[in-house]
């Protein structure tokens, strides 16, 4: 993969002539999406429980064939074990089914998120039911876990969950904190190493220009979240891929209940293309690397989505469900006034 990086040097991109990436204000998705026609994307971090069917349709239409939904904080703090249980069940049940209706293969990671690790009496109970979910089909990792406020409770449950991941032979998906990110990221990695976890089994998420070097140097996977305002912009992402090459780097949307974009990956791919990043590098950071990292779980079979997920007719359901009465998911239908 280092060779790819050399190729970048041999094929000087736009950056070497100018500090600025392509960033005209009139860059519209609709007029540029043809650039990535036929490409497939894998979003390794997106919270579909917070998204609508419009998003599923748009994602499928943009070439997203599979995704990973990490267990996270749903915005409203949970007050009991049952809501955790139902949430985990929906990640392996209803949401997986909902996704399949749109031809997108749905995987998830299961874990106790760092914010709610601070509610220790509840955290204890959650830890007891985690193993019931970790061994399930399609669970590709323990996540997203790590630090938020970097409290002692967060550290305790982070460590306990690293042990669970080891036992279940699952990759770990680490959420790095918004505040004091650099130190939080270093601490997360150091603890993972201390527990004897091979860094090639760990995906460190929400990186930025300040954290990426150390993450890559230590052998971890570096994931980047393209998320407006608080995380990475895709223009900065293009520069990072240009600088570091595609090895062990992956892009995700982390789209959730906040202002975020479920098309972050295809849009970033367009921008990389416009800036002369090679197709193979784009493929690695928007598709293949995520598969390679999470397939260590043994739970990803690319045959399930590589040539498009077949929408199993027997799974179609017309009742009070997303696809009522013979509906076909079709983004183009939105341009008509008629609702049939």
């Amino acid at each position, binding site marked *: 993969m280092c060779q790819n990086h050399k190729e970048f040097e041999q094929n000087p991109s736009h950056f070497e002539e100018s500090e600025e990436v392509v960033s005209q204000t009139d860059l519209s998705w609709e007029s540029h999406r043809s650039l990535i026609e036929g490409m497939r994307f894998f979003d390794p971090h997106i919270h579909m429980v917070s998204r609508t069917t419009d998003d599923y349709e748009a994602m499928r239409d943009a070439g997203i064939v599979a995704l990973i939904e990490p267990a996270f904080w749903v915005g409203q703090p949970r007050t009991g074990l049952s809501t955790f*249980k139902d949430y*985990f*069940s929906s990640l*392996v*049940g*209803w949401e*997986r*089914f909902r996704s399949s209706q749109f031809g997108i293969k749905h995987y998830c990671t299961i874990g106790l998120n760092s914010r709610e690790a601070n509610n220790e009496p509840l955290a204890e109970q959650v830890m007891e*039911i985690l*193993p*019931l*979910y970790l*061994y*399930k*089909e*399609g669970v590709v990792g323990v996540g997203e876990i790590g630090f938020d406020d970097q409290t002692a409770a967060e550290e305790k449950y982070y460590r306990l969950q690293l042990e669970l991941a080891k036992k279940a032979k699952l990759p770990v998906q680490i959420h790095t904190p918004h505040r004091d990110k650099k130190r939080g990221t270093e601490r997360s990695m150091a603890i993972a190493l201390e527990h004897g976890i091979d860094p090639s089994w760990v995906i460190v998420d929400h990186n930025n220009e300040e954290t990426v070097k150390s993450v890559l140097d230590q052998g971890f996977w570096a994931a980047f979240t393209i998320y407006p305002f608080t995380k990475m912009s895709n223009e900065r992402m293009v520069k990072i891929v240009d600088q570091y090459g595609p090895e062990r780097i992956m892009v995700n949307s982390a789209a959730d209940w906040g202002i975020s974009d479920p098309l972050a990956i295809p849009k970033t791919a367009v921008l990389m293309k416009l800036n002369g990043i090679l197709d193979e590098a784009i493929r690695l950071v928007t598709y293949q690397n995520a598969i390679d990292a999470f397939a260590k779980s*043994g*739970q990803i*079979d690319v045959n399930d989505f590589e040539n498009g997920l077949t929408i199993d*007719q*027997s*799974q*179609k*359901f*017309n*009742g*009070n*469900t997303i696809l009522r*009465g*013979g*509906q076909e998911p079709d983004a183009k239908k939105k341009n008509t006034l008629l609702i049939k």
Partner: protein
Amino acid sequence: MLEQLNSLLWEILDDHLTVAEASWLQEQGNATPLELMTAFVAAPRFLAKRTTKPTVAQNIELNEILEGFSVEDWGIVRLGRVWLLSCLDSTHREEYCRHIETLFDTAEMNELVALYSALPLLAYPDQWLFRATDAVRSNMGVVYEAIALRNPYPYHHFSELAWNQLVLKGIFNDKPLHLIYGLEERSNEKLVLTLSDFAHERWAAGRWVAPQVWRLATRFLNETLLDDMKHLFESSSEYDQQAAALVCYHSNHEPALQLLANYPHLQKVVNTHHITWANLEFSDLNTYVSKP
């Protein structure tokens, strides 16, 4: 019964498993309840994605032991999971039920399918009635199918109300009704009246209903239903016409037989069994969009 089923299911499994798979599964079947439950969850990690094809003899034997139960086209994981459940010690009711309930409570979609498929094999059948009606409420297609199709549990245990919901939901969602065990036997006047109302709503919307649903009406023809038959006879769909003819023919209801006599060609094909309900047993209808 359970012991016979347990060994027959194993025989079918054994025909499809590799040596390593078989030895793993057998070990889990003899393990403690908690290990067995973990194996139920973890089965896809140890068993390959393959479909089972029982032999004709095995199918016959299965039907003799438990009429209406079928493992045709099941994946190995599903069959393995159902077999594991049949190994669970049911001596102590409370403990046994707690284990099964835990599996239900934390199940993902394919585990739910296995659990509902296994209902006719579980001890204390009354205990699972609420779960079973809940599966009918599910909007996950495969979960509904696991309880409703080729599964004798609802036939034996559902109340009339629960049964009617199961059938109506199947009709509403274009499921292959002929795979519901006991479909015609458990049909009832109330179900047929609701079916008629439902058909009228569909017709008003310019839609239609699957032709075979009318077999439910055979024993319950009244004036309203007879009007529905007239509507079907006049339908532009040949299948609707055949359905009306079959209902009238099998009804032994004088006004219906007179109605059928108005359509000599249809009368002939049903009298001579050239057309039977089997001709109208479609599996992939979409009555919201197009006619077959």
